[in-house]
């Protein structure tokens, strides 16, 4: 066994240990541990990525050397390693961008807890990405939920507690459905390891038995994870949770946490149920329709919103809709587009949240549009960043959002039935996105006569500006040289089956 093969397991354990150690540390030390941890995990993921790209095949790491079907397995391919690396980058940038703001948002004595929760969140995300075992996946889904709840609630005001309670209820509902699905799978197949379940399911499917239970299982798994990732009719928890939590939490929740669940769903589709059987079940059509509805209704809610943070949050609903639309197309190309959009949206949405906080800070902390007038002149860097994010969301070429749309459309034209609805809704959604994002950009660039609020200078926000620059570069890189990433996604999906 190659030394590198230990890395995925080691990074999960590292995160858990860092969480435990940080709970006894002071604020600054906890922050330091967290930053170092994310960097190390990112580096380990990079090594894993290079290793699996070199060997050209995925590897399975058996925890504690208990062989299947008893033991607990971790599996790493190109896509898993890349996702882990990408998540680390986004998390690092989001935390750096919100670092200064965190002092205002979280009580002094609780800051270390914030980093403990971050460590645990990273652990659970990595586990969701790497695991080859459904029960482990379920355990870390719960850890993820609890950490995310903590991250919402740690900013103590009435709205966040309400938001966290909502999030908790919806999320537990999702986990409950997921658990029921897992139980039924266990009943049907007698296994918990993904590879074993898949073999059994294939057998069950061919034999023609248990058609209805299988369908119900697939539905439960999909709906459970859809609730957790805020697919359209289940998104009621989202705007408050993203809108009122601390800015880093909002960025991380929207760009990573919901994506972790989607990644798990994609893994279940390929590695547990099997792509063909999932496609045959017609659940894809349901996901497709909900995705399309999300694209429209998410944007409409965002247009009606008067609070910039909640507007960005509602835009997430629309973007999650895009991802499910891609999954719902039921083709390889659609899936690739969805996974690309996971990355593209993660990069853009965290950028928007971090950029927006710079604008609200120079508007007296108010998030209402009327106060934001001219804020891009008071904080130039945040203004530019927000504009870049908006253009990317609208889908202007050279930014990552355009490539997502291109890939979705390319996937759509290959599917004769779903082509027209997908393209038309994609068009409408583009226009709707333009309505609210461009409205905001024009608003922040409208000069104001009286100087109500102070401008901020570069000297006061060096780290913030550096973060923003990294975000913009990341976005443009995704938009300009998307081919290597698309290749990685294709290769990774090939390794799944």
């Amino acid at each position, binding site marked *: 066994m190659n030394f590198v093969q230990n890395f995925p397991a080691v990074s999960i354990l590292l995160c858990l240990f860092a969480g435990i150690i940080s709970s006894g540390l002071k604020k600054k030390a906890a922050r330091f541990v967290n930053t170092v941890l994310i960097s190390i995990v990112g580096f380990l993921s990079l090594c894993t990525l290079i290793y699996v790209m070199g060997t050209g095949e995925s590897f399975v790491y058996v925890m504690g050397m208990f062989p299947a079907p008893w033991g607990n397995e971790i599996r790493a391919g190109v896509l898993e390693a890349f996702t882990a690396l990408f998540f680390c980058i986004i998390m690092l940038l989001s935390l750096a961008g919100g670092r200064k703001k965190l002092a205002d948002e979280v009580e002094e004595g609780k800051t270390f807890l914030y980093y403990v929760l971050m460590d645990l969140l990273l652990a659970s995300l990595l586990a969701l990405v790497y695991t080859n075992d459904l029960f482990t996946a379920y355990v870390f889904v719960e850890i993820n939920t609890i950490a995310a709840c903590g991250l919402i609630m740690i900013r103590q005001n009435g709205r966040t507690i309400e938001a966290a309670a909502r999030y908790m209820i919806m999320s537990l509902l999702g986990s409950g459905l997921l658990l029921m699905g897992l139980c039924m799978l266990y009943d049907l197949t007698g296994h918990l390891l993904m590879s074993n379940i898949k073999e059994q399911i294939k057998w069950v499917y061919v034999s023609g038995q248990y058609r209805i239970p299988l369908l119900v299982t697939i539905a439960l798994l999909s709906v459970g994870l859809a609730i957790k990732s805020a697919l359209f009719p289940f998104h009621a928890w989202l705007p408050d949770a993203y809108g009122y939590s601390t800015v880093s939490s909002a960025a991380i929740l929207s760009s990573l946490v919901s994506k972790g669940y989607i990644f798990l769903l994609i893994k279940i589709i390929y590695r547990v149920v099997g792509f063909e059987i999932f496609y045959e079940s017609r659940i894809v059509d349901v996901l497709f329709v909900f995705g399309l509805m999300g694209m429209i209704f998410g944007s409409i809610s965002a247009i009606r919103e008067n609070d910039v943070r909640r507007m960005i949050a509602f835009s997430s609903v629309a973007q999650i809709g895009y991802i499910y639309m891609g999954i719902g197309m039921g083709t390889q190309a659609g899936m690739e587009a969805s996974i690309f959009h996971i990355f593209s949206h993660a990069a853009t949405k965290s950028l928007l949240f971090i950029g927006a906080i710079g604008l609200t800070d120079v508007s007296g902390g108010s998030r209402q549009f009327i106060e934001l007038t001219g804020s891009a002149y008071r904080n130039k860097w945040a203004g530019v960043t927000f504009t870049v994010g908006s253009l990317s969301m609208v889908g202007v070429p050279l930014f990552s959002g355009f490539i997502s749309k291109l890939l979705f459309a*390319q996937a759509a*034209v290959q599917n004769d039935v779903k082509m027209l609805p997908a393209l038309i809704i994609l068009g409408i959604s583009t226009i709707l996105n333009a309505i609210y994002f461009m409205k905001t950009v024009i608003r922040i660039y409208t000069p104001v006569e009286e100087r109500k609020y102070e401008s901020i200078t570069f000297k006061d926000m060096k780290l913030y500006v550096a973060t923003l620059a990294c975000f913009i570069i990341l976005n443009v890189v995704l938009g300009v040289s998307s081919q290597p990433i698309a290749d990685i996604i294709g290769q990774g999906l090939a390794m799944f089956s």
Partner: protein
Amino acid sequence: MYYIILSILFPIFTGVYLLVRKEMKSRKNLLMAAGIFFVISAVLVILALCMAGNGLFTLFNLTNRLPILFKIDEVSVVFSVMAVVVIVCAGFFSFAYMKHEGKEKRYYGYYLIVLGVLIALCFAGNLITFYMFFEVLTLSSMPLVLHNGSKEAVMAGLKYLFYSLSGAYMSLFGIYFLERYGNTLTFSPGGVISAEMAVQHGGILLGICFAMLIGFGVKAGMFPMHAWLPAAHPVAPAPASAVLSAVIVKAGVLALVRVVYYIFGVSFLKGSWVQYAWIVLTLTTVFMGSMLAYREPVLKKRLAYSTVSQLSYILFGLSVMNAESVTGGLLHVLSHGFIKGALFLCAGAIIYMTGKTRVDQLRGIGKEMPLLMWCYTIVSLGLIGIPPTGGFISKWYLAQGALLSDIPGFNWIGPVILLISALLTAGYLLPLTIRGFFPGADYDYGTLKKKEPPLIMTVPILILTALSVGIGLFPQIVTNYLSHIVERVI
């Protein structure tokens, strides 16, 4: 080769530089910088046109199948020369005009970016590159519309944005399909649709062609997506309106030239329902634009409606798809560019000197500014199509093309509508001249003051006027050049 990329990036980068740098010490420095940038940009474009040759220049690959590439051909030359001349003239005109509008640094910044993006559009070698810069053009020209920041301007700007984005998405919709059904997205004379594809997927290809015509037609103010144009063009500062109305809308025309003649190809489209539908749309727009202009009292709005009408002359020429009509259309690209540029600059000079915007306020204006009004009259005659101006030649070709075409019905309806519209053009442009020079017996000559605008305003107008007349006096030079294009695409 590198001149191409330099001529695109130089204006864009200098524009961004003007936008991000601090306020200059004096207005003079800013104007000096902007002037130098204009001149260098123009020189770079000319160098690019002379030196670049016919090669493809690939900048980078967006994805494996979608390179961003540039190529200079005859169509690029026609459009880029027109664009550069009008933009530089209007740019120098702005030096005086923008004094009373303010926020000049921002204005020149976006102005230069628009110049660079337009050059990029002219030089774009495939559809995806074109689309990319088409979007950027919308976004970078929007601040020009928004310039004075009034409620009206913001609403007009948003209208412009949403019409353009909707149009751009319809075109993108077509690009998605073409990427699947066409062999390549690179512009090639005669089209890229293979005969086999035309048979197999003819219906769907025609459908997406129509979607792209409507989509790109938004920028060219074609009915039914023309409503943004009369709203957005007049609210911009006058030199910016000149650029919007004379050059930026031509990006839409260029798009249609590229899509129809370089992607779908004449042999595929000629005689199809798309061609007929397109002819109907253009003729509707020609007539409707003239009628609306005729009853519009505000001078700049009147000129904007006139743009709607005149652009569809060009599109009519393109839609008839024979050698004469295409020559006429492309010729009208040049003459309308110079004429409409000059007309808007005249309107700007009038506003700058007198502050009057409505046509009925301008009685006796010819006595106050005789030179300016002479220019106005000459280019007006050009737009109506009276010899020896450029407009006459282009309309001659257009009418001839329509008559020679064997499209039943349209071969005589087309010229008739062109003729009626020409009369309407006379009806909406000439009253200003008539009332301006002959204010009537009750006009009080005692209060008359000479208000001739400063030289920096007059000279650009004179240049544009001279060019528009020049095309009419020596049409051979231009038509010979255009015949190269026409030979290849028809």
